[in-house]
């Protein structure tokens, strides 16, 4: 279980998070929605220690990780997969080498075992035949899927997704959503997904939270938030309906 309590963070003189409280249950898929610049990605970076809060406490399975550094933080990070918005693949490594990188750095597995695991992950993200390609040779959507495969390389119990469908056409966005959905069913991971894609959010979420003015102002199951009277949520859902009409 991931718990953020009273998180406040200012960046560049601007208050991004203001006493944010958020709990994500074990094996839950939690989707975080909010306007651009609301601090959704900043929130994800708090969980992996890339940004430290000015105030508040972050716990994972009741262990306080707020002020961990060095090796202590490293052990926490190895239990979390992080899918970056751009994929963030290492350019001079092939797709397969990118996926194998965490295993080569942190495990004593043999080359054969790593290759088998890489192939399994490539199958999971539907890129079975693209292992030898370099990041420059694949599309944005494929990079995101490689990023997902790499995030799962160490079998982390928690996976964080930063805008996994941003910049993708609806078909590729749905392909990513299918991968995330399959992952939840087959791997039983706890997922926190930051996205703007409402359709996908409602398709894969167990719960949805809305980040507004540095706090979670509304959360619940897709059905609960659909029935919300919160003006901010209503506006978001109106956008969703408008989006559907234009599709």
């Amino acid at each position: 279980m991931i718990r953020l309590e009273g998180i406040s963070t200012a960046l560049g003189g601007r208050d991004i998070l203001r006493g944010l409280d958020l709990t994500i249950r074990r094996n839950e898929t939690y989707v975080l929605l909010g306007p651009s610049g609301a601090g959704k990605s900043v929130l994800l970076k708090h969980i992996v220690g890339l940004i430290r809060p000015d105030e508040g406490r972050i716990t994972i399975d009741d262990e306080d990780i707020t002020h961990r550094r060095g090796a202590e933080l490293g052990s926490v990070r190895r239990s979390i997969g992080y899918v970056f918005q751009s994929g963030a693949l290492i350019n001079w490594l092939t797709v397969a080498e990118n996926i194998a990188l965490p295993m080569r750095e942190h495990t004593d597995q043999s080359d054969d075992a790593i290759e088998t695991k890489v192939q399994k992950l490539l199958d999971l993200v539907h890129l079975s035949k693209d292992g030898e390609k370099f990041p420059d040779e694949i599309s944005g959507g494929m990079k995101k899927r490689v990023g997902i495969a790499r995030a799962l390389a160490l079998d982390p119990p928690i996976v964080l997704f930063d805008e996994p469908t941003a910049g993708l056409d609806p078909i590729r966005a749905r392909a990513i959503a299918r991968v995330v959905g399959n992952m939840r069913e087959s791997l039983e991971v706890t997922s926190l997904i930051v996205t703007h894609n409402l359709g996908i959010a409602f398709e894969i979420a167990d719960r949805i939270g809305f980040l507004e003015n540095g706090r979670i102002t509304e959360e619940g199951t897709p059905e609960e938030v659909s029935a919300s009277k919160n003006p901010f949520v209503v506006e978001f859902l109106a956008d969703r309906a408008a989006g559907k009409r234009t599709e």
Partner: protein
Amino acid sequence: MIGRLFTGTGGFLIDMAERAGFTILLLARSTRWFGNALGRPREIASLGYTYGVRSLPVVIVVAAFTGMIVSLQTGLALAQYGQQEIMGSIVAIAMCREMGPFITGLILTATAGSSIAAEIGTMNVSEEIDALEVMSIPPEKFLVAPRIFTLTLLCPTLTLLTMLLGICGAAVVAHAQLGVAYSIFFDNAIDALRTIDWYFGFPKDLYTGLFKSVVFGISIATVACANGLTARGGALGVGQAARNAVIVSFLLVLIFGYILTWILYR
């Protein structure tokens, strides 16, 4: 107006101090991963090819022409006194003590230094460095130590080549323009290097020149990596990181060159 000037100067000095501190700490943190870099010979070879072999054409041309220019200028002056035969001594000492490491340092700053800063800067602004951190792979281990290690080996190797090519270029000019026989030129060059102390089988001038180049290699790689790792703000930030890396490395090559000469020859 004056207040703004003080604020601006103070801010600039604080920023400089912060950058210097970060660069020194980066070098200190990276040294623990040198053993790991040693265990990755393929990666070191690949980096050596990228930063070294691709710099070779520039090194060859600049080294040869520097030797030729030094030879021509000193030769013309010496010829007025009929002393052109000692050109070999002057060129050998100049190339080994100063010109070899200095020229190589400047070339590697312009080629490898800017390239490393741009490469790591691009990785930084495209979240690849964050990705490494999240995977618990220290950038010092994965990126910085291999690059420092590579330039530490590469800079003296290219310096040796620069020295040789410079002296050979000078010999050609001395022979063609001033009529100095090759045998006299090279005998004088070797005698000049022999007359000064020997350390570990090397003449002192060669030894100190190579030592300087090791220091230059470490400085260029560390400064480039530090600037790449602190790049912010997309393509503009990457360009700025590369430019800063080149400027700072140029200055460090000059400053360290002077300090080492002072220490080793005073």
